């Protein structure tokens, strides 16, 4: 059955059920499915907002960012404004549904932009379900009104896009976020690597370090205010904290050996990291308040790349204790756990497919682990259940490495070297494996990490 036919059937059934008094009318509303198999993007229309005041350029730019955010999901077909029939929309009036049905619009966003006397700007919008013929309330309200300083206009745009995305898909928002990464320049044998940050859509790219020292593997704190990363500052590879607001860098801990592969715990109270000493790498957890560290693994193999479950009870990591790099899960309290393959152990292996698995990252939803897989001369980014079942490879290239999750667990960002000798670039892909897209950066880029939703 086609998407269109499904759509009409869904509407018919909804209307019939409402007529029978079986379901509340709310269930008839437009709903965009993120996981359906035979996929067609949903047509939505976002006309330019009505402007009160002089700054119509800013109003246009905001609408363009909202459109771009929604289009970037691959879930929506942003309709061409030139094709719109109704030109006299008002935020306070119902749209002429028939006009929008002619061009097959399913969702319509109507907005206003005002310059306020105090110099701030305010944006209001409402979302209409054209085929349902009704307003889609947002958090119980008829619409949303957002106010900020003009410089902050991009965040307003991302918040509007987040509201629309969440209202239509039921998924948590993720546009009003940032991505930290490593900006790379120079020849391969003398690479300069700098900490860099940008908005989730690639805007506002900034460098956070000078490039004097090689820096690697940045990751956000749950507050999005701090980054933990590894730096060769002073010639010694060690884990640091970077405060985004103050620019202050701080060495983390007083470990005798090299420290690397840092990642905040979900509560932001601690950092998981690896220490290598005398040829052996193990995993530690350091409490950021007391600065005391606890050793989580004690094994002669390489144990690295730890990532904690959202409930804080478990840690997934990479170990070659079985001969090749594979993924293992342990309890944070180091007690034995029941392994998926039977039996119990302190660390349970969850990958048994062909190839080498590394860089595990626990999904914010808790049910999946994203990883890098290396097999037969190719690299893949994939996901696997925490029980070791349901492995799915989402991407494939000469080098695809280092996945991280959008805060809603829906999109994965990673870096790619498309061919031998190609320079690294950032990409994202939907959890379904659809919608692989390049995130354009000013320089070559690697090691992307996604922030939580900004406050």
């Amino acid at each position, binding site marked *: 059955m086609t998407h269109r036919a499904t759509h009409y059937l869904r509407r018919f059934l909804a209307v019939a059920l409402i007529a029978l008094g079986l379901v509340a009318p709310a269930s008839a509303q437009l709903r965009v499915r993120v996981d359906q198999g035979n996929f067609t993007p949903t047509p939505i229309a976002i006309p330019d907002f009505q402007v009160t005041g002089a700054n119509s350029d800013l109003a246009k730019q905001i609408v363009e960012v909202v459109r771009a955010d929604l289009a970037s999901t691959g879930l929506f077909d942003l309709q061409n404004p030139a094709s719109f029939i109704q030109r006299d929309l008002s935020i306070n009036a119902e749209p002429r549904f028939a006009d929008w049905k002619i061009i097959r619009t399913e969702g319509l966003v109507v907005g206003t932009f005002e310059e306020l006397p105090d110099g701030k700007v305010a944006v209001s919008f409402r979302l209409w379900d054209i085929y349902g013929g009704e307003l889609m309330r947002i958090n119980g309200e008829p619409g949303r009104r957002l106010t900020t300083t003009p410089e902050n206009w991009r965040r307003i745009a991302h918040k509007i896009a987040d509201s629309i995305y969440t209202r239509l898909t039921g998924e948590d928002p993720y546009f009003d976020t940032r991505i930290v990464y490593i900006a790379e320049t120079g*020849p*391969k*044998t003398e*690479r300069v*690597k700098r900490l860099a940050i940008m908005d989730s859509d690639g805007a506002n790219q900034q460098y956070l370090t000078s490039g004097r020292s*090689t820096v*690697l*593997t940045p990751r956000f704190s749950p507050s999005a205010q701090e980054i933990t990363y*590894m730096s060769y500052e002073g*010639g*010694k*590879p060690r884990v640091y904290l970077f405060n985004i607001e103050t620019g202050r860098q701080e060495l983390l801990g007083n470990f005798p*050996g*090299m420290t*690397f*592969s840092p990642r905040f715990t979900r509560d932001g109270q601690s950092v998981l990291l*690896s220490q*290598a000493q*005398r*040829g*052996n*790498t193990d995993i530690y957890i350091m409490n950021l308040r007391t600065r005391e560290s606890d050793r989580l693994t004690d094994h002669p193999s*390489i144990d*690295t*790349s730890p990532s904690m479950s959202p409930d804080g009870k478990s840690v997934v990591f*990479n170990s*070659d204790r079985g001969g*090749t*790099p594979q993924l293992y899960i342990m309890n944070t309290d180091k007690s034995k756990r029941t392994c998926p393959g039977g039996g119990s152990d302190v660390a349970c292996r969850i990958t048994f497919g062909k190839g*080498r698995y*590394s*860089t595990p990252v626990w999904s914010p939803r808790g049910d999946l682990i994203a990883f*890098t897989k*290396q097999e037969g001369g190719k690299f893949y980014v994939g996901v696997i259940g925490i029980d070791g079942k349901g492995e799915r490879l989402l991407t494939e290239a*000469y*080098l695809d*490495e*280092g996945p991280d999750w959008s805060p809603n667990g829906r999109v994965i960002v990673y870096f790619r070297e498309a061919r*031998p*000798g190609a320079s690294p670039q950032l990409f994202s892909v939907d959890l379904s494996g659809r919608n692989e897209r390049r995130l354009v950066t000013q320089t070559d880029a690697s*090691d992307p990490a996604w922030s939580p939703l900004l406050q």
Partner: protein
Amino acid sequence: MHTFLKVTAAAALLATGACASKPKPVEEAAPVAETPVVKEEVKTVDTTPVVTSSIAPGSLEDFRVNVGERVYFDLDQYRLDTEDQDILKRQAAWLASYPNIRILIAGNADERGTREYNLALGERRANAVKEYLVSLGVAASRVDTVSYGKERPVVAGSDDQSWALNRNGWTQIVSGATS
């Protein structure tokens, strides 16, 4: 097969290394010396002494050319084979002659692994080199190690020979050498 690769790889490396850091040997300039434009260059080259005779004992050059500064590892391995051990025996003997010299051993990995695992692997390799040198009598206090993982390839290529060159333990003189 592997030993052959190592030998050719090491030879290629020495050759490129020499071109990058030293004046070219006189013979190389000869074929182009007939054209007037290049003649002046030849003169310049003539004034430099022949490289092999200019190496001061105990110098960085001495260590690099006459001892060997790198050992090469098999894929995913940190084991030292007899060829690696021979190089490290020469390093240990040389270090015994120059007791003020301090060294830094860098462990390196090829690009066909993920970043964090390769950092751990590089540390393992650097440590394997250090432990072997210490077992031959080099004081552990003279030896530091660092892992660069896949961050500092010796050569930029993406092929088997380049990867073999980039899987290495590199003994670098930090201080105490004669100049």
